[in-house]
């Protein structure tokens, strides 16, 4: 775990002008406690050994970097490689972060775990690690997401956690986060809040990024081993941005690798009905951080639209805003329709059913692969598997299961 590769965020939690700690006073103590614990443990050998042991033995890391032969042929330009986070235990990259954070919770002596979830993957990953340590666990989930991700809701319950359906606001991920923050304000003394993305107040964007950077670290050595160079591009979907950040972060210093984040274009960015704040937002404060945000002309947070519950969020992690403004990463958006088309294509061409979130990254290959020649190597971060989305896709295709 090389956690000090660059000096961001600064001591106040800012990446350039983005990030920070915008929370009610009640939470200041908890955030300081978390920051102190993390600073103390992140370079502690015993802590690091435990983290990597769990990732190896419980999660099954490292995840393979797999050559997508038929997809490569399909485009006929560069080689396409898939980082198989979908093969992790629980089926997505989300487990990497929860493995790390539950260790922090344990060291801090917290007895109660809370988390928000959109697609349910973070809820499952949190319920999983909480079960493993025998800790009480509560998952907040927007009622709309409870409907469209019912499989994951049941998985969370099987793991012994309680699911709290949230009806307020737009009843999606942002509202689940609001409710989790309210729980935390109320039960702050004995509760650890495992945030599931590189969002929220400092130190969360840093902690979640660091734990999930295991993905990018593996990619560096796997790229050397498999094609003996740095990749020409890494493509990842961006909701809050944790899978992208984990893959991008170790590559920030390698300028030869293009970093491309794909946001949820919903009905199309031009329609305003989407979840793409980096493409069509302005800086604002939501959930404790300043970052690009979808907001209306009086500063209210706008509703979002995406076929993918995990990307259906009006904000984005502050480090992505910084990477956008500095030009180090590029952020594009693809529509629901394009993502659904890619969902089917990848399933049929590669025998891998990707999560609808991941399908957004695949969909952008239609544009991106035209920019590369045969000697190039493109990595797609397969953030999760698509089993959870089968009902949603079947519904759209008019099929009753």
């Amino acid at each position, binding site marked *: 775990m090389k956690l000090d590769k660059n000096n961001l965020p600064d001591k106040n939690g800012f990446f350039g002008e983005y990030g920070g700690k915008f929370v009610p006073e*009640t939470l200041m103590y908890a955030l300081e406690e978390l920051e102190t614990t993390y600073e103390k443990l992140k370079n502690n050998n015993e802590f690091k050994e435990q983290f990597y042991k769990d990732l190896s033995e419980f999660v099954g890391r490292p995840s393979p970097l797999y050559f997508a032969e038929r997809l490569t042929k399909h485009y006929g330009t560069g080689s396409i490689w898939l980082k198989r986070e979908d093969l992790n235990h629980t089926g997505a990259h989300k487990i990497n972060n929860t493995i790390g954070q539950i260790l922090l919770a344990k060291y801090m002596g917290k007895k109660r775990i809370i988390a928000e979830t959109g697609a349910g993957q973070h809820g499952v990953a949190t319920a999983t690690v909480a079960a493993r340590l025998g800790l009480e666990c509560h998952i907040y989930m927007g009622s709309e997401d409870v409907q469209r991700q019912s499989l994951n809701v049941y998985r969370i319950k099987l793991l012994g956690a309680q699911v709290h359906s949230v009806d*307020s606001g737009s009843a999606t991920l942002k509202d689940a986060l609001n409710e989790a923050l*309210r729980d935390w304000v109320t039960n702050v003394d004995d509760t650890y809040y495992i945030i599931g993305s590189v969002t929220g107040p400092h130190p969360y964007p840093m902690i979640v990024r660091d734990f999930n950077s295991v993905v990018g670290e593996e990619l560096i050595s796997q790229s050397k081993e498999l094609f003996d160079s740095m990749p020409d591009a890494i493509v990842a979907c961006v909701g809050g941005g944790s899978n992208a950040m984990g893959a991008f972060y170790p590559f920030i210093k390698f300028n030869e690798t293009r970093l491309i984040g794909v946001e949820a274009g919903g009905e199309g960015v031009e329609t305003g009905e989407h979840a793409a704040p980096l493409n069509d937002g302005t800086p604002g404060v939501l959930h404790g951080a300043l970052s690009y945000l979808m907001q209306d002309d009086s500063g209210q*947070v706008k509703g979002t639209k995406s076929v993918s519950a995990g990307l259906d969020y009006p904000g984005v992690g502050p480090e992505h805003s910084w990477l956008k403004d500095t030009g180090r990463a590029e952020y594009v958006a693809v529509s629901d329709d394009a993502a659904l088309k890619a969902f089917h294509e990848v399933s049929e061409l590669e025998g891998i059913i990707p999560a609808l979130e991941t399908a957004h990254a695949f969909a952008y290959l239609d544009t991106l692969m035209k920019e590369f020649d045969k000697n190039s190597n493109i990595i797609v971060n397969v953030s999760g598997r698509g089993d959870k989305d089968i009902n949603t896709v079947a519904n759209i295709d008019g099929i009753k299961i």
Partner: protein
Amino acid sequence: MNRLTNTLDELKNKNKKALVAYLVAGDPDIEMTIELMKLFVESGVDIIEIGVPFTDPIAEGPVIQKAHDRALKNNVSLKLIFEMVDQFRKNDNKTPLVLMGYLNTFIFNKALIEDNKNDVIDSVLVVDIPGELKLKDYGVHNPNINNISLISPTTKKDRIELIAKNSSGFVYYVTLRGVTGASNLDVNEITKNVEEIKKYASVPTLAGFGIKSAEDAKLLSQCSDGVIIGSSIVQMIAEGSQTKEFDRIRKYIIEIKQAIS
């Protein structure tokens, strides 16, 4: 010196406790909000806190969340709130008015706060910033508006000192771990913390969050300089919004006022 400081000084000189009442602007509608503000003053409220509706009010319990939602359905913006306050000021230039809301609204509408046309607003309370910081730290500056800081039961001693010394208008002591309208008051802890704040603060310390009954108000007024009532009034506003009959609120405020006198 603005209205808030004047009012708090007057109360202090008379050895009286302050009664602050909260409502959400535009709930049930802007006209009724102005009427309710008048009713507050007639019934004995010293300071009015005007909630600025926000889509994601993370510090609010269900009662006030719903009020924010109702106001947003009426498209209540900060601009509209300033117009509303202008209207109120035509008949009342004495009652201090505090805007209570979330940072994004204030930085997004920076010009409105910096302008504060005709000085209608006296103070701003931003719920989602750490106690030691002020709007000025986020680039919104108006020296005639004071910034009320919050201190909570989890604030450590070194921060209590920092925040208390930094506060203007009054210090808002959040009486519980939780959201507005919750019910887990711990009077011993509150008394101890308010005493600690008073060591450092040059302004009064008022207590809010979770005060429901006249009895709660009485207990808390004994250890603080006044109390802030929010959720229970907002609940009565919600229940009376169909009939527009708010006599219950009048009775409730009078009862609280007597309890803290």
